């Protein structure tokens, strides 16, 4: 049951984009087309889960024992940056089709604060490793859900005549706001 709650909470109730405010840059940037949104979701899920596992281990095996928790930020970000690049070549070698699909998004992910945010949050929430994995995966799904919905709406808005001043970012933010408003209904579900 706790897992179900973690999943529901991460996807709907505390959606990373719509209520936690993380990963907004790609949310706004890579959401013009549904297909790219889906690709980005795949890449983020992949990296987020792996990054969470690795940073979790680093925290528990290095930072905690030596009580140098304040190095969290710097070590996590280094790990994530290296990891993203690592994933990139491994993917290229191991599964070229997957690389084709996700590759272009990988560089964008280093500066996606959702990855670092989730890594830190799992530590803050004191999850065990399995919970951490479930949490990060469902957070990524939540990110994907928000991204794909948002991309759908933006694709539709591309076809209508918006007021001049609202075109582009303003309307995107307002749509995001209304989406967040709608998602508030999930409050208390988990």
């Amino acid at each position, binding site marked *: 049951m706790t897992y179900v709650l973690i999943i529901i909470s991460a996807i709907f109730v505390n959606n990373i984009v719509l209520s936690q405010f993380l990963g907004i840059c790609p949310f706004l940037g890579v959401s013009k087309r549904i297909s790219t949104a889906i690709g980005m979701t795949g890449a983020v899920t992949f990296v987020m889960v792996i990054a969470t596992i690795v940073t979790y281990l680093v925290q528990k095996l290095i930072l905690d024992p*030596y009580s*140098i928790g304040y190095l969290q930020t710097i070590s996590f970000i*280094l790990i994530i940056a*290296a990891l993203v*690049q*690592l994933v990139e070549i491994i993917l290229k070698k191991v599964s070229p089709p997957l690389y084709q699909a996700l590759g272009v998004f990988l560089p964008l992910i280093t500066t996606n604060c959702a990855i670092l945010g989730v890594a830190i949050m799992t530590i803050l929430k004191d999850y065990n490793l399995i919970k951490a994995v479930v949490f990060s995966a469902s957070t990524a799904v939540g990110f994907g859900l928000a991204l794909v919905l948002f991309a759908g709406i933006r694709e539709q808005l591309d076809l209508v005549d918006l007021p001049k001043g609202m075109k582009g970012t303003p309307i995107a933010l307002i749509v995001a706001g209304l989406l967040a408003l709608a998602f508030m209904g999930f409050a208390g579900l988990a």
Partner: protein
Amino acid sequence: MNVVLITIITLSALGATAAVILYFVAQKFKVYEDPRIDQVEEILPAANCGGCGFPGCRAFAEALVKADDLSGYNCPVGGADVMSKAGKILGKEVTPAAPMVAVVRCNGTCENRPKQNNYDGAKSCSIASALYGGETGCTFGCLGLGDCVEACQFNAMYMDEKTGLPVIIEDNCVACGACVTACPKNIIELRNKGPKSRRIFVSCVNKDKGAPAKKACSVACIGCGKCVKVCPFEAITLENNLAYIDFNKCKLCRKCVTECPTNAIHELNFPPKKEKTAIETAEEN
């Protein structure tokens, strides 16, 4: 142990590992992209208008880098300036293209070309022209529904309410050619801008024979051929009852302008005609 020491060790270890990993990553992960593409793209105007004939500025930059010779490539927005910069980066010669500008080759204003019926379909020239010849007796002329204006990204066109014809704002026009493609009637043409922006052209595309053409529009080219004869530079040709002035040959002598019985030949940005005609008449006398 000293916290500072642990810190230093951990971070150095992390840093060193990252360096080693990244080195090997970098070794294996080598996709060569010509850095000049970025450089060229940077100097392009980023209008992504497609006037160069490529899908966007980056595609154009790629094409430029690949090209052996830059003649035939032109960014109409940036003009010769940008092209010579690009040429410098690439070490290739550019022959500066003569600056061009769009001209509207129809003068069928509401007075010149009386309406014979009313169009009530979607406001689009392409749609109207697929349906029929237009509201007037001239099936070649401007439909006045403004597809060209829609197409212009540079605010260089507007529809003149009074005449019902599009007008080009020369200073804004970058000769991207979008309007040329947009017009289903092939009325708009890119022509050399000419010295001091002076140009002479036949402002009509009507291929009907003289009588019906004249009947449909008082300023139509009737294909009488007088201009062809008067032109000292053989710049004017006549085909399908329609005269055309080759802007590469035209020397702006203005003889044809006065010769045309229907005033179908237009001159732009010349000083007022009076004095010149006075001199001319003096010479004749």
